[in-house]
């Protein structure tokens, strides 16, 4: 049993320091940006599980999520919002982690359905992971199996509100606590697990470095030479499957 609750509010230090460092002009721009971000959510088109079946109804004519500025996007690069639509098999989780890391911040993760919270009805399945926020920082959960379009909309609206008010900063936590998340991932996939993305380099580049960005788990990445992408890296980047 983990000793922290499933829902964790974003740590305060994630947002405030940079907000205070910024000038009035910078804060105003950031405020406008948050406003725009909330009203222009690009959802990644990745049907990770069966919850995806209620997305087309939410997106299309009847509920029309474009009314609130959401539209599906194809590749992780373009998207802001990753929907984990239900249970995650181990095989999918690997892809989801890569996909998440390939998304560009600010990025948000939404867990769909009970199975992302505690495994749901697949609690004793050998193939699915039970808790999503063990591996990725999650911004919003929708309970239920299967969540109804109304619930989905409600969650989206709440997420938008959270973004608008500047509280949806969990994506920074992934950089700040990368060692923790990597450790959880390695525990599941094996010690040699790594993605071709350079999370640590990005954290350094964007000043998102935190006390837990580096640690014993990230030390294992050293041999893949991810910190200095270039000459040798291409050789080593090979995922054991």
């Amino acid at each position: 049993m983990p000793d922290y609750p499933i829902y964790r509010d974003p740590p305060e230090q994630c947002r405030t320091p940079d907000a205070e460092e910024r000038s009035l002009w910078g804060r105003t721009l950031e405020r406008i940006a948050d406003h725009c971000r909330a009203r222009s959510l690009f959802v990644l088109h990745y049907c990770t599980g069966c919850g995806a079946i209620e997305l087309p109804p939410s997106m299309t004519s009847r509920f029309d999520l474009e009314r609130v500025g959401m539209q599906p996007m194809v590749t992780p690069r373009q998207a802001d919002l990753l929907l984990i639509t239900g249970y995650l098999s181990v095989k999918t989780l690997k892809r989801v982690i890569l996909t998440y890391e390939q998304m560009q911040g600010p990025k948000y993760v939404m867990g769909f359905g009970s199975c992302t919270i505690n495994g749901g009805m697949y609690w004793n399945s050998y193939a699915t992971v039970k808790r999503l926020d063990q591996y990725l920082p999650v911004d919003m959960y929708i309970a239920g199996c299967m969540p109804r379009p109304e619930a989905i909309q409600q969650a989206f609206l709440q997420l938008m509100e959270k973004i608008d008010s500047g509280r949806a900063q969990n994506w920074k936590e992934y950089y700040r606590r990368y060692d923790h998340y990597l450790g959880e991932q390695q525990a599941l996939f094996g010690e040699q697990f790594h993605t071709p993305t350079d999370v640590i380099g990005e954290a350094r580049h964007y000043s998102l470095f935190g006390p837990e960005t580096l640690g014993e788990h990230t030390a294992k990445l050293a041999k893949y030479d991810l910190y200095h992408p270039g000459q040798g890296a291409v050789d080593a980047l090979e995922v054991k499957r």
Partner: protein
Amino acid sequence: MSIALQLLLMPLAAFLVGLAMVLMMRKVRASVERRIGPPWYQPLFDIYKLFAKDTQISHGVMHDVAIMMVLGGIICVVLFLPVPGMSGLSAKGDLITLLYLMMVPSLGMALGVGQTANPNGSIGIARALTAMAGYEIPFFICVAGAALHYGTTDLNQILTIQQHGGHLEHWGIVQMPLLAVAALFAVHAMLGKEPFEIYVAPAEIATGPMVEMSGKYLGTLFVMQCFQLFTVSVLYTTLFLGGGFSWFTLLLKAFAVVFISVLVTNVYPRYRTDDVLRWQWKWPTGIALLGLGMVMLQIGR
């Protein structure tokens, strides 16, 4: 108006009009699909959000330079396109220059996408260039016909000829109806709408050129879409619809051109790459050649 002010105002106006055109496009699409569609600020918010992304991925110098080329190229094109009250630099470069300048952002995008080293992107570019070979041929036939008809390639002169007397009879579409029709087909393909949307084709190549574009890179492509809608529709208006005496008439005509295009696009699937060529080389090209023949006869007489 001083030229410096014009150089500032022309891109700004083009951008704003382009935003409105994108909004109209999305609204029309929504109503065809029986839904409400985005709020009025949506295109602007999308672009602002993309430019305000905190992290973004670059695949190399060319990827960055490409974005600058795209932004610069589209702005530069607008400077050569006369609009009511502002002729910009259009006296220094004519229709052919304009059409060639329009290829600069495309080239920039092609190079940038190439550096992202994604096969989807490369296929997308290969398809886009192929489609270009498809629609540019009829379009250039129309341009040749129009240039012969007006006896000039200077856009200001073309506008003067058409607006002479303020009657419809001098409009390109009245004088050269076949060319105007063919050019409309080509313009539709130039805007990359279904059934000629092969180079984006999300279900096949995952949006092709845009596949590795994040944040401001993608935002630039959104901006490019705004400018492209403006440029193409205003160019068509200038060549065939008599341009505009005022901004109101110009926008009325330009929006009508885009409206026809977006109305058609929503009821067609996309053709395969080779079918795009076959279609473009059959119908618009054939009509354009007929129209060209008529222009030749007129000139000969």
